[in-house]
């Protein structure tokens, strides 16, 4: 098997960079762990879930999808190519990789998003198995695991008490990556450490089932009180994929932007005529939960959440998807008081 010392991950990054990959890894950014483009000298940290997700590099916060040169009333379209350099998503979390299954699905469902697909095809995904977790992690409650290989081209497995990493190829892209890493990897044997045990926090099937019958529940206003309607959770989430198209122009050129959007924003569903079908945070939270645990499962047989916990870590108002799911699951354990 191919091995590398656990504290030599930057050597692997350097080797891959020399081989022409843009290396994205969890970097220490003034004390915060953030997935960023790695550059020589940057410290890679794998001891915490990064504040952002791998989604940033496949579906960026803002992207140009159309351009025109303007000349009075005349306009000339310009060719816009997706910016998709060969990339390795190194030491991301298994929950990030698992999210790619959903992103691949929605960006190729009714319309093939060439921008996402170009970046996706250019990306090699190398998650690292989690041997630690925090209170907010709940991958095991949503069909995931700290050593899940969904979406992975190769896996980094901590081994020999955390001193070594095994790099195990899983796909053709993974094999290509291992070749590119060359002498940064040593040949040898090691015993993979057990992944961290994450207790199941709620029964997700019970949640999905409850959602199918409780659109009008009083639970929605109750659980959404703390939410102030920003986009922090949706932006941090590896599976959230809503976007807003904006055209911006000067007298000389115009661009069409695809920007991240959040169903938590008050204006997300505001109609041009003034009506808003989701007029309060309760309705918006209902949508958020149902999208992830009811509509997506119904349509794609996947869950819309991989249990990474970023939403709860980043929320400035104390909202937490796993807490909401626990509350819903608790509802299902109560005796029914009326016919639903």
């Amino acid at each position, binding site marked *: 098997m191919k091995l590398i010392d656990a504290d030599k991950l930057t050597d692997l990054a350097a080797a891959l960079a020399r081989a022409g990959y843009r290396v994205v890894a969890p970097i220490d950014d003034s004390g915060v762990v953030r997935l960023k483009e790695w550059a020589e000298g940057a410290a890679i940290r794998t001891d915490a879930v990064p504040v952002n997700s791998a989604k940033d590099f496949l579906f960026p916060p803002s992207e140009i999808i159309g351009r025109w040169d303007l000349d009075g009333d005349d306009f000339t379209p310009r060719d816009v190519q997706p910016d998709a350099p060969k990339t390795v998503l190194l030491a991301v979390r298994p929950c990030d990789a698992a999210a790619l299954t959903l992103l691949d699905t929605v960006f190729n469902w009714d319309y093939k998003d060439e921008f996402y697909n170009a970046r996706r095809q250019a990306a090699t995904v190398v998650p690292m198995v989690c041997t630690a977790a925090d209170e907010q992690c709940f991958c095991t409650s949503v069909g995931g695991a700290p050593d899940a290989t969904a979406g992975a081209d190769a896996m980094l497995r901590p081994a020999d008490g955390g001193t070594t990493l095994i790099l195990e190829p899983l796909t053709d892209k993974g094999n290509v990556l291992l070749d590119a890493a060359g002498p940064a990897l040593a040949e040898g044997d090691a015993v993979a450490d057990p992944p961290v045990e994450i207790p199941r926090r709620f029964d997700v099937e019970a949640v999905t089932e409850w959602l199918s019958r409780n659109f009008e529940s009083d639970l929605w206003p109750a659980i959404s009180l*703390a939410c*102030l309607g*920003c*986009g922090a959770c949706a932006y941090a989430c590896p599976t959230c994929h809503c976007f807003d198209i*904006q055209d911006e122009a000067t007298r000389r050129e115009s661009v069409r932007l695809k920007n991240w959007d*959040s169903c938590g924003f008050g204006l997300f569903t505001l109609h041009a005529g003034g009506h808003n079908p989701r007029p*309060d945070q309760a309705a918006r939270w209902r949508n958020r939960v149902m999208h992830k645990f009811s509509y997506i499962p119904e349509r794609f047989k996947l869950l819309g959440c991989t249990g990474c916990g970023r939403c709860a870590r980043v929320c*400035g*108002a*104390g909202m937490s998807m796993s807490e909401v799911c626990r509350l819903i699951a608790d509802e299902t354990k109560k005796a029914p008081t009326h016919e639903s």
Partner: protein
Amino acid sequence: MDVDRLRQDAAALLADGRARMVIGFRDRAGDRVPAFITDAEQAGELVYDEACRQNLAAYLKKAELARFRPVAIVARPAVMRSLVLLAAEAQVADADVLVLGVSDDDEYHGILDLAATAALLNEKYAEMPHDPDLVKRIEEISAMTPEERSTFWTEQFARCTRCYACRAACPMCYCTQCIVEKNVPQWISTAAAGHGNYAWNIIRAFHLAGRCTECGACEAACPQGIPLMLLNVVLARDVEEEFGIKVGYDAEAEPVIGSWSPDDGEDFIR
């Protein structure tokens, strides 16, 4: 600080109907998250300490909480000033809100209506200093050359993803359609980059000039750790030094940017 008295007062308010909801903080696995209590029995879960950084006055923005008025809000002095300012801006009526006065200096101030809140501020917290660490950092940045300042802020604003958590966390950002959501014309570019990020952060700070009580909730809410308080304290110090105005101490005060004095300085005007 005597949290038991806070809990007792909260329970009493709910029991006798002086408040229909108490908004405070509870503990969740070591984190401090908001608590929305409608039953006296739940008052025992209230906590308060320095880790409680949210400005709970922001919840007055939520229309769905209107039916719970009168609401009692756990408020430290910076938050009390937000409430007084909201009253000055006619966003909250005296009958709608009560304060459970807390502080970071271990004093519990009990149940206060808005008038008593303003009185307390003027009596005990009349000199609320600007955070000295922020002032020091502002001075360091002001001593840089304009090019260095420009580079510094380019780096800071480059991280902004336009999640608007800063806006959501702020009790004074209550516009139903924010300037950044006006698209006829699109004043502020929506792209999470460059000039759009600069304009958004500068204009938001400017819209809060004379309205910011330096509670720090915006910076605490920012997922990217952008030092928003630097901008806010620059403006807050100016409002105090140039116009002699203390923000959030008078429920009858006129808005700072919406008013003027014949004595306002103009030494920079040719």
